[in-house]
């Protein structure tokens, strides 16, 4: 369940964060829309994830009149919260690409969308991959918080076993080892991708 929540949240976060980052980068600012996107990203970052989770699970269904499963609430709140950070990563990555790259694409007849797709995003990805890896790590660890709304994920399972067996030390250490293992896997995968898409092969 931990992995499911993380993957669902990551898909949401990276999709929304990418769009938000593109809309708030210096080169593609759109009046009204870009400041609005930046404001939303700020709210996602400023409000603690736990509070966002409680709002999505308890407040939104009340206000809008629908029921939300703990899994959906976890994925939505974690995904949105992380999108605020991904937006900043993407914005920073895009702003770091020299303006000359945009201009070179323009004089060769690329429109903004093609410039972004063919020239800018592939370069940006190489710059921001370590930061994306960080964000994914952080997502993985934040899944522990969703146990508070009744999600049976890794930490909650550990807590349940502890209350049954009354052996906190080995059980919590095992839980920590699981997180460590998953994090190590993510890191190795990210390193592999980094190496694969690097311009300079070592």
């Amino acid at each position: 369940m931990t992995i499911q929540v993380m993957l669902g949240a990551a898909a949401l976060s990276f999709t929304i964060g990418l769009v938000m980052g593109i809309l708030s980068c210096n080169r593609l600012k759109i009046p009204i829309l870009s400041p609005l996107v930046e404001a939303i990203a700020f709210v996602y970052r400023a409000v603690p994830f736990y509070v966002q989770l409680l709002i999505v699970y308890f407040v939104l269904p009340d206000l809008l009149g629908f029921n939300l499963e703990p899994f959906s609430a976890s994925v939505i709140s974690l995904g949105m919260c992380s999108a605020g950070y991904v937006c900043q990563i993407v914005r920073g990555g895009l702003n770091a690409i020299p303006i000359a790259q945009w201009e070179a694409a323009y004089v060769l007849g690329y429109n903004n969308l093609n410039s972004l797709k063919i020239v800018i995003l592939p370069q940006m990805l190489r710059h921001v991959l370590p930061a994306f890896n960080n964000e994914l790590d952080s997502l993985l660890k934040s899944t522990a918080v969703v146990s508070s709304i009744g999600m049976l994920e890794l930490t909650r399972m550990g807590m349940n076993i502890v209350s049954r067996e009354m052996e906190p030390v080995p059980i919590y250490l095992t839980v920590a080892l699981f997180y460590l293992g998953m994090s190590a896997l993510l890191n190795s995968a990210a390193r592999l991708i980094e190496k694969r898409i690097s311009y300079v092969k070592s």
Partner: protein
Amino acid sequence: MLKVKQLSLRQIIKEISLEVPEEKITLLLGKSGSGKTSLLRCIAQLEKEYTGDILYDNQPLSSLTAQERCQAIGFVPQFFALFPHMTILENCAKSLQLLGESKESAYEKVRKTLDSLDMGKFADRKPHQLSGGQQQRAVIARALVLNPAFLLFDEPTSALDPENTKLFIEILRSFKGKGILIATQDMTFAEQVLDRAYFLENGCLIEEYDGTQSLPLESKLGRFFDKELVKKYLVSPSRELDERVNSPILQQDYAVPRLHGDNTRD
């Protein structure tokens, strides 16, 4: 013919009018900050807030579609700006593909162009695997594949060693039927390719040389060339130094007082 009429850009360029004919090399000369690069950027449509007209075949460049603009103007920027994640072949072919060419036909055209610049063997390399001169030729190829009527160069020799500068001059001379506009402050290079020239100072057009009149020493252009030459020979004396400073023109103007320490402070 490319015509610039009464062009102004904020406080950088002030009411400049000039003409760039086909089959000629036109130079934009002037010191750093004189507005050469900004003028080129306006013509390449990278600056859009200018006032005045830039006409290609009597049509405003700003009204052309992206495809028409690419076929009118090719721009080679000072720092090349090759796309680092693509091979040279992809760098050159992508724009053709975007204009509707098939991948095979685009690659074939690019390979021909690269071969003509002696760059065929580097087609599958990435930009960081090339030297400065090779990167420049790759950028020239990238501009040439779109077959523009005019090519603009911004300080093309600033990153080149003498050998590559020589090669670049040969390439320039091999362009048939294209109008070339070069912004440069490299006077030794300028001397070798000059057909026509405009001299800029503080964003204003001070003088023009149409290639037919003689270049009087007392003119801005004449002085600019000579001063640069004298500077060069003062910094790195060579066998030619004596020949240069003994020329009556330079003696009279700059060389003798400076060389003998006989300047105005004494």
